[in-house]
Every structure is written in C-alpha cells, then in structure tokens.
C-alpha cells in the first residue's frame, strides 16, 4: 500500500476553494510547513481552517491569512498574529473560538467514529450558547456537560517526524500535540515527514497514527522549525 507522493504540491493537488482543512501543530511547533507553503503557492481561497492556533504574521497559517485565503478560522487561541487581528476586526474573516480540549476531542471523535461527545468545558459560558446541556454523574459528581459534534474536515495536513510509505506516523516530543487527532479526522489526510522510510523500518509498537488514517505521504524539505518563545537558562 504505497501512499507516497512526490512533494507537497502533488499532495495538495485536489484541495480546492471552499474546503474545510485541519492542520496539525501547536503554535509553530510541529506544523506542516511544506503543505502550507504549497497551499499559499496554489492560492486556494475561502478555506475553513481548523487548527489550535493561526500561526504568526510571517509563518505557519499566518502565511495563508496574509494572502486572505482563509474565510473562517476554528481555533482555541490566536494571540500571536497582528494580521489575524486586522482581518477579524474588519470582518474579512470569521472566527470560531472553542476550548482547546473541546477542539482536540471533537477531532478525535471524527477519527474514532463518534458523532458527538460530551465535555464540561464551557458550561455556563458564552461557548454554551445554543448548545445542548446534559447532566451526568462522572467520577462521583453530578455536573453539566455540553454536547459537541465531531469535526470532520475534508482534508487534514500534518507533519510527522518519521513515516513509512504505508502511512504509519511517529511524532517527536511536543510536535505531536494536535497532529494525531488531526490526522485521524481528515476525510483525506496528507502527511509530510522529516524522515520517510520503508515499511518495516518503524517499530509496530511505536506507531502514533496507523497508516489506515493517512492517504498521502511525502518527504518534506527545508524545515525551518521556528521557535516562537525562546526561553533558556544560563549554564552555571
């Protein structure tokens, strides 16, 4: 089952205007750099993007924002982005902010074939407006939960550390973040990897996303892996 494609532009060839696109990554950590660049180059428009964050002005999904390719953003935190601010305030872009755990779990629900989940996040807040509230007893306590629906993106793009041609993926450290659930949620899932290997080279015990969830995979190039907040200690 060889799912290898040549490069990002081949991988995203059928991502058309108006589709819903989920992207892995947390801040700039673990984002699918090659796919994003190819989408900028292709110039697809009116995207609904699902991603925890929206990149920064000149990197990550910020590149798509700058070119006004995103119609609607579904995210949990979009702080680091002046262009984002401008587009939102001017009404050029719609934004749907949802709790981070709700976002992760709604994506997971799609990958696990669960049409909806219950979460306590947002009960009693404006996030709950128009949503079904239901009481459950869990862990010995009765409380209210919101019904939240699975997020089923048309396409998912993720970056993994290693992957094989059958689509099995392994992530490195916190570059894992949302990427496994994004990968599992996509109707079509595209993975770019730092190391593309042959089937049999990855340990079957160590796979984070089984290949059945991945439709295309390619060897990424020129990873910048930008650090958003460099914090260090001095050696003493």
């Amino acid at each position, binding site marked *: 089952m060889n799912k290898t494609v040549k490069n990002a532009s081949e991988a995203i060839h059928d991502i058309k205007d108006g589709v819903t696109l989920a992207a892995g990554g947390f801040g700039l950590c673990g984002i699918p750099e090659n796919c994003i660049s190819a989408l900028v180059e292709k110039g697809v428009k009116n995207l609904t993007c699902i991603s925890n964050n929206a990149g920064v002005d000149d990197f990550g999904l910020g590149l798509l924002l700058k070119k006004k390719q995103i119609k609607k953003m579904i995210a949990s*935190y979009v702080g680091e982005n002046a262009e984002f601010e401008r587009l939102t305030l001017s009404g050029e872009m719609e934004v749907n902010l949802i709790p981070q755990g709700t976002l992760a779990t709604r994506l997971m629900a799609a990958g696990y074939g669960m049409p909806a989940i219950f979460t306590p996040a947002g009960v009693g807040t404006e996030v709950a407006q128009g949503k079904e509230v239901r009481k459950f007893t869990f862990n010995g306590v009765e409380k209210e939960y919101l019904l939240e629906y699975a997020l089923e993106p048309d396409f998912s793009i993720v970056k993994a550390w290693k992957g094989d041609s059958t689509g099995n993926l392994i992530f490195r450290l916190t570059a894992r973040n949302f990427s496994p659930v994004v990968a599992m949620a996509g109707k079509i899932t595209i993975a770019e990897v730092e190391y593309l290997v042959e089937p049999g080279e990855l340990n079957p015990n160590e796979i984070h996303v089984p290949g059945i969830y991945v439709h295309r995979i390619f060897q990424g190039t020129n990873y910048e892996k930008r650090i958003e907040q460099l914090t260090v200690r001095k050696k003493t």
Partner: protein
Amino acid sequence: MLDKNGIAKRIAKEVKNGMYVNLGIGIPTLVANYIPKNINVVLQSENGILNMGPFPFEGEEDADLINAGKQTVTLLPGAAIFDSALSFGMIRAQKVDLTILGGMEVSENGDIANWKIPGKLVKGMGGAMDLVASAKNIIVAMQHVNKAGESKLLPACTLPLTGKKCVKRIVTELAVVDILPQGGFKLIERAPGVSVDQIKRATTGKLIIEGEIPEMVID
C-alpha cells in the same frame, strides 16, 4: 504586600507531595521555581507533557519541545509525551490534582473570567475553559485589584465567564481567600504587612472574616 514572586511562593506551599499540577501562563509558571525540593511533584503541560522540566540551557533548546505557553522547555526523567486529546482527557478525568491559573475576575460563588474583554480583541480561551471545568482543585493567582484600582473579587463577574463555580482558592498580593461552597470569600491569610482593612477595601464581593487572620508565612 507581595510581588509576583511572592504570590508564586505562597502558592507553592499549596503544592503537596505526589501531586500532578498544571500551571497556567504568568504568575502560575513562576510557582515551579518555589516548589520545595524535598517533595515529588509532576508538572503537566496541556500540549502534551508529564514531568516537564525547567527551561533548557542556552543552545540546548529544541523546537519540538515546548510548553503550553510555547516556551522551550525540557523533560525530567519519567517524562511522557502524549497528544492533545489524551492531555485534555486526563484533565477531564481529574487525574490532574491541582490547576493554578491567572484570573481577571473571580466571583464570590467561584466563577472565573479570564479570557475575554468585550471591545478588545479576543485571543481565545486556549485550554482555560477545559481546565476550570474539570479540575478538582483550582487556585487562582492574580492581583487583588485591577489597574484602575477596582476589585477583581466581585459579587458577580462582569466579564464573560471562563467557568462557573470552580475556583477554590485565590492568592493575591494582599491575601489568601477561599471560596466557600455556599458562596463568599473567606479570608484565610493576610500578606505580610497588610491589614484586614486593606483587604476589605480591596474586595467588592462578600468577604467573610472569622477570628484572627494570620499573616502568611512564606520562605
């Protein structure tokens, strides 16, 4: 009156041996510096870390290893990495014993507002709504009054809520205050050199003062 590090130091005393703790951005992050060395505490970062360590040494930073504030961090022995869904899974399942986070307003029935100021740009709630809706034990680290001098401990929050009836304790530059189950801010401790009257004046919500209020012991 305490500075930010003082607030962090006082909160560090709430952290007990064997706890799994999630620290929010800002003052809560500083708490890690003051956890006693003789107790075992595991820090959880909601982007997918257990046993998170301090910032890396210069030159040893790794773009693939950040905390929920997007800062470069390290791992301690026994660390585990997991995806965001499992991370919030363990938070919702109440496996995290203590959540410490910042606040803009807290009401006397334990509501918290810390994500949105109407009219200003909304950056998003991140993981805060999940954390406050799930945690068994939530401590809020914040200033007692805002920059305009108005109390942040209120009868009811005026800002959009992050969560309802969830805060158990507040530590400010002036005091330690508990939220009673039936409502009300119960004064527990005064900051060094701060009088009960000062705290009264800085608290708009119902402040409950019973008996002598001891001064905090920090360090």
